[in-house]
């Protein structure tokens, strides 16, 4: 089972799910709604609730 978390795009404000394996990396994510690339630290919001 894959642990996920949610990020909110800093540009369009829409949220999408991300594999938790890249939570503490600087890998640029890519918003599927507006193609904005941003790191986890640049996200407008995170939802990491789990368990």
């Amino acid at each position, binding site marked *: *089972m894959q642990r*996920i978390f949610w990020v909110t795009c800093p540009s369009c404000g829409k949220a999408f799910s*991300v*594999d938790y394996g890249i939570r503490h990396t600087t*890998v640029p994510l*890519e918003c*599927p*709604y507006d*193609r904005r690339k941003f790191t986890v630290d640049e996200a407008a919001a995170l939802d990491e609730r789990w368990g």
Partner: protein
Amino acid sequence: MAKDLRTFIKQIESEHPGDFRRITKEVDPANYDVTAIMEHLYRRGERPAVLFEHPKNLKGEDSDIPVLINVFAERARCATALDFPRDQANLPLSLEFSRLSEAGVAPVTVSPADAPVKEVVLTGDQIDTRDLPIVIHSEGDYGPCLTMTLLVKDPESGAYNAAFIKAFYDFDDERRLRITIHSPDTERALAWYEARQQPMPIVAVLGHHPAFYLGTMGLTPYESDDFTTIGGFLGEPLRLVPSETWGDDFLVPADAEILIEGEVPPGERMIADPFGDITRQYQAQTLRPVMNVTAITRRRDAILQDVFAGHHDHFTVGQIPKEGTLYNTLRRKFGDIVTAVHLPYSGCGRLACYVSIKKTREGQGKAVALAAIQESWTFQVVVVVDDVIDVFNEQDVVWAALVNVDPSRDVDMIHNIPTVFTTSMGYRKVLIDATRPLDKAIPEMNRVPQEALDRIDLDAYLEGR
């Protein structure tokens, strides 16, 4: 004439016209036109294969490549693809699938001149994936996505392996795809190449006879050759032709509609997903291998085939193979008390498993459930019912659970066990013994006498209407 996608279309259009629809109006697959039309059809309870004759490509131009979707959405249509009776499309079809998995017909190699897929060959600067009418399926998907089979070759045994693997259009490079390798066999092949820092040859097959794709789902060992297995499903040798990129070292299906050849560079990963996937949930964004496209070959009048992800078209492809295998496994273990197996659409053909048994003593239901849950990592719930219940009739399965189950003893939860999908059940699985208890007095299921059912010829009575 070899079996291919167009022989199948011709067959269902003539023999089962309700199974096939043509949409002549222009559609934009990258703006959800295709999946919106499909969703409308599903909501009406209609699941035909649909050919979109005038789609736009990813440049927004009119494409000369139609899109075919939803071929696998009906079990009866899958039966037709395997030359099997449509009225036996439940468990008998699953058992036929198991039989075909072991049939095996060796492939043959033909020259490029005899290979329709070589009618158009694009290499180098001619390659542009934006020329394809690639479908975006669900809101929030990473982007346009090819959903059919990718081929790899085991470098040691020489066996080919085929698996349904998503290939996303790459917004940064029209000669690259981002591929979501997750099948064990393909992962194993990739690990071999990456351990040696070598690029892995890989080929996307975007259209072929549905028996070709069903054959790729045959549950066979890694070392077995999927081209031979596919031949068993086609009932004839699969025709192969040397690839453009690797020649005789990597053969490809000669009668495919479109092939995309490419190489997976070792160790390279890029962002891909989300994607509305098999469980109707979104696969989360993550790092995936990429495929640098080296050639695109196709028929002059090629059709791009696609799977309607997260719908029956997607569920059935995995459901049928697992049912037959599980039935045979349980029969080997428990004998003929096991009467049927079904992976229902409500569980996306993956999450839930219904088994019926001819129960002779208390406890058999749970024993069968325990055995079944170990047979697939995708199962989260197994329900066992009596053989009077048709496991393909979900209403009856739920009824049995509602009247037969004592939750204090008939429902068990297994904790801390590997699961594949991210659901609220977490690392847990549930067994439900919904067979009628033999050790206490409770009512039994009502029924019309079998003698009366056998005696009454329904059509003779209805003729008088």
